[in-house]
C-alpha cells in the first residue's frame, strides 16, 4: 500500500471539506450546541437553583442512581453531588453522538460522492488500489469526527470546570474515566460505524440514500456506545480497556473486510452507461 496515495486521497477530501462552509458550519453549530451550550445552560441552572423543587428532584434521582455512581460522585452537598453527576455521568453520551454524526455525514458521501460528481472515473482509471482508496476515505471521514471529539471535549472540560469546579473546590475534569472514554473507547466506535457506512456509500446509487442508510447505522452505534460510555466513566478499570481493545479489533477487521469488498466499478456509474 502506497501511503502517498492514501495521503493524497484523504488530503483532497479534507481540503474540500474545509472549503465547503455549507457542509461544516452546520456540523460546527451542532458540536457547539452539544459540547458547549447545552452543558453550559444545564450545569449553570443546576448551580443556581438551590432550594427549589428542581434540585429536590435531582437529589432524589441521585439517591436512586446505582450505588457505584454515588460512591464515586464527589461533592459535600446534594447540589454539588448533583452537579458532579450531571457533568461527569449524564452528559457522557454527547461525547459519542457528535463525532459519530460528523464522521457519518462525511463518510456516507465518501464513495457515492465520487461517483455522483464523476471524479470516481479518474480514480477508477488511476493506479490507486481499492485498499488505498478505502483507507484514504476512512481517514478523511475519521479525522473530522476525531477533531470534533478532541476540540469539543476540551471545550466541554472548560465549561464543566468553570461551572461545577467552584462547587467542588477547583478544577476536577476530565476524570480518568473520561480520558479513557475519549482516547481509547470512542475512536474505535466511530471507526466501526464508518466501516459500515463506507460499505453503504459504495453500494447505494445516491448520496441522499447513503445518508438515510447511514442514520440507521449510527443510531444503534450511539445506543450501544451510550451504555458503554456510562459504564466506562463510572468504572474506568480493566473492563474499559478490554472494551476499547475489542472495539479496535472489530474496527480493524471490518476495515480489512471493507477494503477487500470495494470494487473499482463502484466508482463508475456502469449500470446505466455503455
Amino acid at each position: 500500500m502506497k501511503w502517498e496515495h492514501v495521503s493524497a486521497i484523504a488530503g483532497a477530501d479534507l481540503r474540500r471539506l474545509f472549503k465547503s462552509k455549507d457542509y461544516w458550519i452546520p456540523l460546527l453549530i451542532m458540536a457547539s450546541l452539544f459540547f458547549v451550550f447545552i452543558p453550559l445552560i444545564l450545569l449553570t441552572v443546576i448551580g443556581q437553583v438551590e432550594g427549589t423543587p428542581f434540585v429536590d428532584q435531582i437529589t432524589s434521582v441521585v439517591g436512586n442512581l446505582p450505588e457505584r455512581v454515588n460512591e464515586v460522585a464527589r461533592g459535600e452537598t446534594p447540589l454539588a453531588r448533583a452537579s458532579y453527576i450531571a457533568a461527569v455521568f449524564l452528559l457522557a453520551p454527547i461525547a459519542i453522538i457528535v463525532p459519530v454524526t460528523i464522521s457519518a455525514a462525511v463518510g456516507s458521501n465518501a464513495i457515492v460522492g465520487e461517483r455522483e460528481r464523476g471524479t470516481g472515473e479518474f480514480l477508477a482509471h488511476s493506479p490507486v488500489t481499492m485498499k488505498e482508496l478505502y483507507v484514504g476515505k476512512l481517514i478523511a471521514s475519521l479525522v473530522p469526527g476525531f477533531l470534533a471529539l478532541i476540540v469539543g471535549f476540551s471545550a466541554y472540560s472548560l465549561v464543566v470546570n468553570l461551572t461545577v469546579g467552584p462547587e467542588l473546590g477547583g478544577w476536577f475534569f476530565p476524570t480518568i474515566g473520561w480520558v479513557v472514554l475519549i482516547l481509547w473507547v470512542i475512536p474505535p466506535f466511530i471507526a466501526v460505524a464508518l466501516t459500515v457506512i463506507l460499505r453503504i456509500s459504495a453500494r447505494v446509487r445516491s448520496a441522499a440514500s447513503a445518508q438515510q442508510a447511514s442514520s440507521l447505522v449510527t443510531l444503534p452505534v450511539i445506543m450501544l456506545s451510550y451504555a458503554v460510555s456510562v459504564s466506562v466513566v463510572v468504572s474506568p478499570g480493566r473492563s474499559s480497556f478490554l472494551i476499547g481493545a475489542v472495539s479496535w479489533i472489530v474496527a480493524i477487521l471490518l476495515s480489512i473486510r471493507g477494503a477487500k469488498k470495494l470494487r473499482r466499478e463502484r466508482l463508475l456509474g456502469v449500470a446505466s452507461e455503455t
Partner: protein
Amino acid sequence: MEFAIRFGSVSKSFGAIRAVDALEFEAPTGAVTVLLGPNGAGKTTTVRLATGALVADRGDIEVLGLHPKVDGDEVRRRVGIVPPKPAFYDQLTGWENLRFAARIFGASESSALDAAERFEIDHALLQEVGGYSTGMRTRLALARSVIHDPEVLLLDEPTAGLDPESSRKVLELIRELAGRGRTIVLCTHLLHEAEGIADQIVLMSDGHARVSGSPEELTGRYLADPVVLFDAEDRATLDSIADRRGVVSVSWNGAVHATLSDHGTLPDLIADLVTDGVRLTRVEPITPSLEELYFAMQRSDPEESS
C-alpha cells in the same frame, strides 16, 4: 506492426445489456486509432476495459503487453485518459486538482505545471475549478491526462460540449501529442473530428467492431472507384462525359464529379476531352470524406448497421 492495445473477442455485459460483444481490434503503437460509432456503441466501455476499470466477462485484452485484469495498476500507471465529461473536485483550484493527480501518478509538481502550460490552462490554475468553462475543464483534463507522460492516451469524446474554436484547439493538441509518438485512442461519434487525424479507424456499433483499418484501406475497400472532379470554361461541353470509356457514373455539383472504373483511365479521358475541344479548367482527384466512407461502410452491411 506492434500493437499498444489488442482486444481479442472481448465481451462485457451489464445485466441484460451487452455493452461490448466479441469486440476485436488492435491499436498500433504510435498511431491515432479512432473508435467511431454512434452513442451506445460501446466506446466508453471499451476504454474502461482497456484500463482495467472494468473487467471483461470474456475475451483477452492486452495493453502495452500487459493484461489489465492482472496488471491493472501497472497499465493505469502507463495510460492517460480523458473521460467524456471530465470531472474535478470543484471546490479545489485547478492547481490543487493537478497536484492531486500528480501525487496519484507519482509525477512531480513541475511536470504538472508543464502540462498546464502545454494545454494553456496555467493562467487559471489558482481559480476554483467550479468556475471553469467547459473548454477550460477539457484543457485541464487533457493536462491531467499527460501529467505522468503516458505511453497510451485514451480520449473519450474529448470535444463533447465544446465550441468549434475550443474543439479545433483540442484536436490540434491531439495531433501534437500524436506527433510526439504517443499511442492515441480517440472515441468519437463525430465524423469530422476523426477526419485527418485517424491513422486507423474502428467502426463500432452494438458493442462490436464492424470494420477496421487505415482510412486508405477502408477507402479502397468501400469506395474503390476513384472520383475525379472536372470543370471547364463551358460546362455544357462536359455533358458527354458520362458516355465516355472508363466513366462509371457522373454527378453534378457545380462541377462534374465523375466516378471512374480505375485511376488508369484518367489520362485517356483527359486526352479525349481535350481532343474534342473541351477546355478544362480543373481536374482534381477527390479524396472521399470520412462521412462518405462511414456511410459507404454502413451501406455495405445494412443488417449489422440496423
